[in-house]
């Protein structure tokens, strides 16, 4: 178990209902527990089965400390966005000058945007804003990479690979692979490839 730069170390995973936030937070939480940390995970998914805003808060500690499942304003250390605007929504609330972000560039349009009542922000400008509000930012089109592997379902494991590569969490690739093998045994081979792909994208960024 590594020492953490802060206790609790706070990770947010932000996305849209149906993108797999809850499974992703569970997999990362399991990997952290396997590495010896104490974790608390709250999945905030509201009422709708699909397409509502979802955020998972993962709080990590090396010892038993006084902590709650929630974050307060400005107290995120790492934010992963499965959807860019959901990342920005959480970044503007929980961000601070030291925060690290990992973001998937593929938008999912809210219903108000589709009906024309609201505007979806210009994606390039949104990415610039995310960079400005982060100490370090890893930007990748994980959905497109997942489609190359045959299914958008691999998006989150690619993002998990990128998160590993960012070094923002005290996690090793070995532990992550062990968890994927245990929790998703049937899809392990392809998920292993997806994890590696995410790591590569961070090692050799194309658009960052």
């Amino acid at each position, binding site marked *: 178990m590594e020492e953490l730069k802060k206790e609790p170390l706070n990770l947010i995973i932000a996305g849209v209902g149906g993108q797999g936030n809850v499974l992703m937070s569970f997999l990362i939480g399991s990997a952290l527990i396997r590495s010896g940390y104490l974790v608390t995970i709250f999945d905030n998914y509201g009422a*709708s089965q699909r397409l509502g805003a979802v955020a998972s808060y993962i709080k990590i500690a090396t010892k038993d400390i006084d902590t709650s499942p929630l974050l307060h304003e400005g107290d995120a250390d790492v934010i992963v966005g499965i959807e860019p605007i959901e990342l920005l929504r959480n970044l503007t609330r929980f961000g601070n000058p030291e925060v690290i972000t990992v973001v998937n560039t593929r938008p999912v349009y809210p219903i108000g945007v589709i009906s024309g009542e609201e505007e979806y922000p210009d994606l390039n400008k949104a990415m610039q804003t995310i960079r400005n509000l982060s100490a370090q930012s890893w930007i990748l089109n994980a959905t497109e990479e997942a489609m190359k592997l045959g299914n958008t379902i691999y998006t989150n494991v690619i993002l998990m690979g990128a998160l590993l590569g960012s070094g923002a969490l005290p996690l090793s690739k070995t532990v992550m692979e062990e968890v994927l093998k245990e929790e998703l045994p049937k899809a392990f081979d392809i998920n292993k490839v997806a994890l590696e792909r995410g790591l590569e994208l961070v090692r050799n960024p194309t658009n960052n």
Partner: protein
Amino acid sequence: MASIEIDAPGTTQLLLGNEAIARGALEAGIGFATAYPGTPSSEIMGTLAPISKKIGIYAEWSINEMVAFEAASAASLANIRALSSMKANGVNVIADFLVNLQMTGIGKGLVLVVCDDPGGMTSSNEQDTRPIAKWLNIPLLEPSTAQECKDMTKWAFELSEELGMVCMVRSVTYLSHTRGNVRFEKLPEISNKASFNDIYDIDNPRQSRFTCGMQFHPYKQSEVLLKKISKAPEKFESSPFNSYKGPDTPEFLIISSGICSTYVAEAIGVLNLQDRVGIVKLGTTWPLPEGFITKQLERSSNVLFIEEIAPFVEQSVMELAASLPPDRPRPTFYGKRSGHVRAWGEQDLNLVIQSIASVAGISYQSRKTSSTDYQSNSDEAAKILPARPLTFCPGCPHRASFWAIKNAIQLDGRNGFVTGDIGCTAMGMISPGSFQVRTYYAMGGGVGVANGFGHLDQFDFHQPVIAVCGDATFFHASIPGLINGVWNKSNFTLAILDNSATAMTGFQPHPGTGMMASGEPGNKVNIEAVCRSLGVHVEICDPFDLNAAVTTLLAMMRNEGNAKVLILRHECELVRARKTKQKLFKMYVDHDKCIGEECGCNRLCTRVFSCPGLVWDKEAGKAVIDEAVCAGCGLCADVCPQGAIVKEAL
């Protein structure tokens, strides 16, 4: 995900609060569990049901909370420990039975788990269930962590037996849906044997001895009940779930319970107030452990209460303080009454930090607000964020049903409207349901209020009324309303939007699906057979056949003078997709046919129909399918007046 049934004492697992409650029940050796789905409580039964056969307990999704709780009570009376779980609204449904059960007492341990939804994030209302415990003299426990969810549920069974009455465990969304480390204890050897010890003496009936007593004199039972509950505080006095942490004589004392006590503990660290503030954490909130509280009140002349929804502990402690002898110190109380704590909605860490800082007279800077530049850039960025409101899922049959209802109402032209009900169909209130739902109250409330609207013709009221409910809601509480309408000739159409699932809470089975909680087949109850047995005129349509659905509904609205039933049946897309893992159609927009803004339809497809899988390409000025979101249901092809949306069977 986590296995709650493993017998691995001493190991630590990552469990949801709700899973930990289920584990606590197993460690207490329950034999019987019942529930009705309702966020945020559903995972308790969701965890127990699939393993019930394997571990030898009986677990049931019941038709509604009332039957669930009644069945669990029967198991308790027959000497089997039983658990019943539900959301806050469910306790309203069981209230009548609960009042009477308190008159008789129970057999073996009976625990009612209720999961409140502060803020009403996934509910029709916001309500605090704790005052019900006080009203009915039920011992009440409030866990604050996943570990306590397990430990206190286990303890609740012991308490229930020691006191001879049902015991209530209250969770909230932020606890039920939080995963935390839970240390397992041993699972008991289950040797449950049921026996109902009524002795009916056939020769001498007056000498018969009944488990529940005869209730010809309820006031006598009240006396017994008060005696029983008076024994609870002494058990709470020494409970490890009540604690004090802080200096001996702090500047002020914070009293909190449940999940709020974790916010308080973290907030004190954030504000660096460890030397100035003392924290009283209460796990047993009714009846109060009066000795413990009185001792804590003497530590400081300032007391702040942090809790969500009702000022429940606040009022109870103030009552206690008022009953203390006049020579005892009278602290100044801060909380909802004084305006230092928000009196509505859920609490969160920010609000608690603000409340404590205001009482402590300090200002607080977060990592965000301590940099002015960062904060102003961040606030600026927040302004460009579009909201992400609720919607029907891509492929949802309710989108089709409400589209049909809206069109039928327009064609009818008499300003008809929908009386809505609980569940996914409630989204008929907002854009994906074309804003058709005008009333929305409780389970079964849609058909209930339709009974009234349907009898206003003598007062010159001629708007057609369409009650809408889902299939699970039909079974839960809509049948009596329908029977009343049939009997009294109320003029309404009940549209049952049958998607063959309790979808909003996570696809639990119900009588219409024919499956039982354990995953085994039960006896399927046919919705149309139930309705037809009442002599109601019943029509069945697939809402994806839009024309047929509109025409049929229109005809029913015009056939006045009786209650009618239209079943709009199409399987929930999420359930279908889980089974087949395949889309039905490949969808695309033929851009030669879509004439964009030139078309007189005024973007009917995206502006009005508003499915998340069909979006407007601004650059092209035409509609386009979002492949990553589209479920391939094919419905939008029938909506486009130009026939530009193409569906190709897969």
